């Protein structure tokens, strides 16, 4: 169908797209176009309407969704066509890459068969030819031919996303739509997938619409960028221009709110919350620092220009330069910083048992395999690692305040192995935790006042719920409201208030901002920083996001498969990482600056974290191992951390990553 109706000009044009769900508008008049071979980055926070836009373009809106406006593929309208006709376009000319490849692939067919099916449906190729093509495609995205017979659950997340991409490009589509394609992946895998996407685009010459919340990813791969807010585009333009000279206050706010690898500058959150439903006037007006009377009168339109913003007084200045003054970090000097937490050789192995009747030992997962951690009073230790590296297991071991399988945990000088019941209970008041998911960490059946009061009641302390709510920047009058009445950021504040209730000395932060939008995340990070300064707290801050850790940490420990591979002061780790894994992590993490991002030298990291039987765990992926001619010591001995905190047989002394 859709032949070469028009050879030149944009491949995909979206004009005045409207999407609503049950009468509630999600997208209100979005227009953009992409040319062949071009990458358009669509940025927006949750609820901005970016996914609804993608689904409407694909014709995949759920039954309750209604779309209006025009979606033109090579000049032909797609909206309103019957599903049967659209099915001939989807997968052929228009292909989509979803966020979660596990649910986007059918679990009961091999990936080879699934890709072959896509080929056969649209080209009518024979089964044999289609399978051959599938293998060819898998090869292109870096999956060995033998894995074509694997089922989706047998592949890792990164491999599944590669398979998704292979399926999407199977028929040389005109347009690829990728909806948060790397959000569920670790940063080193994300770098691989972005590379595969680039290859796929080059091989097919397709236009790519890349939808994401991650400004760093956009900075690295997009040609043009469109910023969505409240169901509309608020700014669009060439990526360099937008990052350098954002014109819409929301875009510049976003750029100031995003944490960066290369600076610990205090973040400037955007106050308030995204609109729940369209308001009259500019959607951003309630949160805008430059708001004026005229802003609430009429909703500004996005002018038709190469770089334009939907704002009545578009700013021309740089997004960065004006608020650089608060870089001064107050360093509190404690007479003799006490050791709050001391972990030595902590081990946590999980036995894996097989068999329903006779339980046989099938193996051991070394979740935490002898780690040392030190946190001193008033200090933040950042524990960084990718998913599955054992950082959460380590946290749970520390928080349980019990005797570990091996090694010792001391909190405020007390060894947890020797604690009596009563002492352990008393010590719980000194170590508290803030969890990752603000939805799951608060009991949905309890008013927040009761949630915050629980630690106080348990330990028989006086009620100071109101004071705690005020401390985290919430209204003490909200104590009677339930968690679901709060936004994600506010809920996280409630979680922090609960952690502070017993006036602990150490707070364990388990990915406290990774579930939050950028504009909200900045506020929480600032709150944590202020609380630390005011109350002299120590933090053990666990995150997979290096830029976020940079914001808060004084020292950093990098964890890989149950071991700490490198520890050091934050400046040293970020400017002169020594362990090859730290180097790879830092180089894979995207920086929200197109110029810097494109100029960076990457240390590519192949594969994914897989435990090895003996020797250095990182060996299978280690560039240094290959460069040094695969030395035998790496295969036979696990490197122990040096006094400087580096666990590598071949430390590099005069090495600095060029970034």
């Amino acid at each position, binding site marked *: 169908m859709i032949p070469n109706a028009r050879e030149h000009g944009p491949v995909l044009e979206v004009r005045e797209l409207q999407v609503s769900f049950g009468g509630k508008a999600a997208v209100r008049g979005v227009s953009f176009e992409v040319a062949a071979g071009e990458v358009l980055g669509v940025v927006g926070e949750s609820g901005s309407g970016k996914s609804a836009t993608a689904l409407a373009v694909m014709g995949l809106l759920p039954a309750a969704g209604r779309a209006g406006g025009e979606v033109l593929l090579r000049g032909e309208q797609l909206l309103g066509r019957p599903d049967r006709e659209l099915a001939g376009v989807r997968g052929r000319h228009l292909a989509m890459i979803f966020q979660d490849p596990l649910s986007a692939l059918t679990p009961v067919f091999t990936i080879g068969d699934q890709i072959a099916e896509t080929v056969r449906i649209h080209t009518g190729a024979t089964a044999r030819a289609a399978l051959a093509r599938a293998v060819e495609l898998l090869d292109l995205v870096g999956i060995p031919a033998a894995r074509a017979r694997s089922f989706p659950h047998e592949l890792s997340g990164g491999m599944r996303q590669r398979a998704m991409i292979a399926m999407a490009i199977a028929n040389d589509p005109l347009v690829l739509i990728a909806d948060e394609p790397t959000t569920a992946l670790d940063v080193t895998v994300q770098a691989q997938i972005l590379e595969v996407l680039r290859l796929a685009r080059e091989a097919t010459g397709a236009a790519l619409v890349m939808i994401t919340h991650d400004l760093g990813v956009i900075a690295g791969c997009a040609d043009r960028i469109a910023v969505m807010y409240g169901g509309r585009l608020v700014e669009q333009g060439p990526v360099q221009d937008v990052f350098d000279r954002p014109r819409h206050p929301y875009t510049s706010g976003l750029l100031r709110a995003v944490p960066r690898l290369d600076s610990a500058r205090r973040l400037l959150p955007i106050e308030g919350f995204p609109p729940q439903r369209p308001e009259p006037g500019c959607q951003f007006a309630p949160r805008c620092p430059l708001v004026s009377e005229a802003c609430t009168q009429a909703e500004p339109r996005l002018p038709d220009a190469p770089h334009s913003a939907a704002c009545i007084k578009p700013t021309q200045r740089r997004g960065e330069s004006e608020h650089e003054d608060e870089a001064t970090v107050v360093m509190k000097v404690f007479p003799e910083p006490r050791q709050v937490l001391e972990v030595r050789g902590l081990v946590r192995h999980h036995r894996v048992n097989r068999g329903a009747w006779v339980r046989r030992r099938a193996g051991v997962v070394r979740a935490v395999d002898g780690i040392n951690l030190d946190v001193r009073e008033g200090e933040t230790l950042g524990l960084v690692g990718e998913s599955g590296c054992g950082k959460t297991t380590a946290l*749970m071991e520390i*928080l*349980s305040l019990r005797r570990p399988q091996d090694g010792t945990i001391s909190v405020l000088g007390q060894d947890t192995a020797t604690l009596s019941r009563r002492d*352990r*209970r008393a010590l*719980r*008041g000194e*170590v*508290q*935790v803030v*969890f*990752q*998911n603000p939805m*799951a*960490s*608060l*009991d*949905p*059946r*309890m*008013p927040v*006042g*009761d*949630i915050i*009061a*629980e*630690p106080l009641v*348990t*330990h028989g302390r006086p009620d100071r719920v109101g004071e705690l709510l005020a401390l985290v920047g919430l209204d003490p009058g909200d*104590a*009677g409201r*339930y*968690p*679901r*009445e709060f936004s994600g950021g506010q809920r996280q504040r409630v*979680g922090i208030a*609960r952690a502070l209730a*017993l006036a602990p000395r150490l707070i364990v932060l388990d990915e406290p901002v990774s579930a939050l939008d950028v504009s909200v995340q900045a506020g929480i990070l600032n709150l944590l920083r202020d609380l630390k300064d005011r109350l002299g707290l120590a933090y053990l801050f666990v995150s997979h996001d290096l830029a976020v850790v940079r914001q808060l940490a004084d020292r950093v420990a990098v964890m890989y498969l149950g071991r700490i591979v490198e520890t050091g002061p934050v400046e040293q780790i970020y400017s002169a990482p020594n362990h090859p894994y730290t180097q790879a992590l830092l180089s894979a993490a995207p920086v929200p600056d197109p110029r810097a991002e494109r100029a960076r030298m990457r240390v590519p990291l192949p594969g994914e974290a897989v435990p090895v039987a003996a020797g250095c765990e990182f060996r299978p992926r280690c560039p240094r191992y290959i460069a040094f001619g695969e030395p035998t010591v790496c295969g036979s001995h696990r490197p122990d951390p040096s006094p400087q905190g580096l666990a590598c047989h071949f430390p590099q002394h005069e090495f600095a990553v060029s970034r």
Partner: protein
Amino acid sequence: MRGTLVLARLRRHPAALAGFVTLTVLFVLAFAGPCAARWDWNQIDFTAFRRPPSAQHWFGTTATGRDVYALTLRGMQKSLVIGLLVAVLSTGLAALVGAFAGYLGGWPDRLLMWGVDLLLVLPSFLLVAVLSPSLRGTSWVLLVLLLAAFMWMVTARVVRGLTLSLREQEYVLAARFVGVSTPRIIFRHILPNLAALLIIDATLNVSLAIITESGLSYFGFGVQPPDSSLGTVIADGAGAATTYPWLFAPAAALLVLTVLAVNLAGDGLRDALEAQ
């Protein structure tokens, strides 16, 4: 704080209010209603056999000349108390056993679930039938206990399964790391989050208990004549339901009304416990 909020919400819930009011009215009717009648439930009017409703006998009389109004209300007393008690007992037991087994894990879990499985495979109806002759003449409380003892197992298993996932929730972990004791975590965090299931289970159990009791009574094991329950009244009258509807209709209507009221009240309670 939660308590007052729930009560306030319950008061604003029209269906719940209707349910609770109806239940109260039914209780008042069952226990105070007989005083208004001219006939006692165990009196026999030898001048009126199988008469339709009249000013003398408001709901008519049975074949043996007993007043249907008095009989039905007497049955209501038994059925209401049995139904509600059995439901509360069996759901409560299910919640406790399931939540503790799921939360504690390890050997308490295995032991409790072993007990549950054992009770599940016992033919409960037969067992009650075998046991009831030896209960003859003792209090109806034993019947309640017996009925409750055989109704909680499936729910306990469901509760255990849900608890297994709830105990990994971060808010439960947070409570544990604060030092909240195990029973307190179960009563404050686990059970309230299972409220929807437990309330639905309890409302279903009310009707199930009333019906099981009538089934038992019908076979002569439950409430024994001359005493009556809604079950015995319905069982006695059901055979002649088309020819002498008054023998059967009032009791059936009251049974339906009771179950309906319990359901409404339960729905309201669930909505009130669940934050909007």
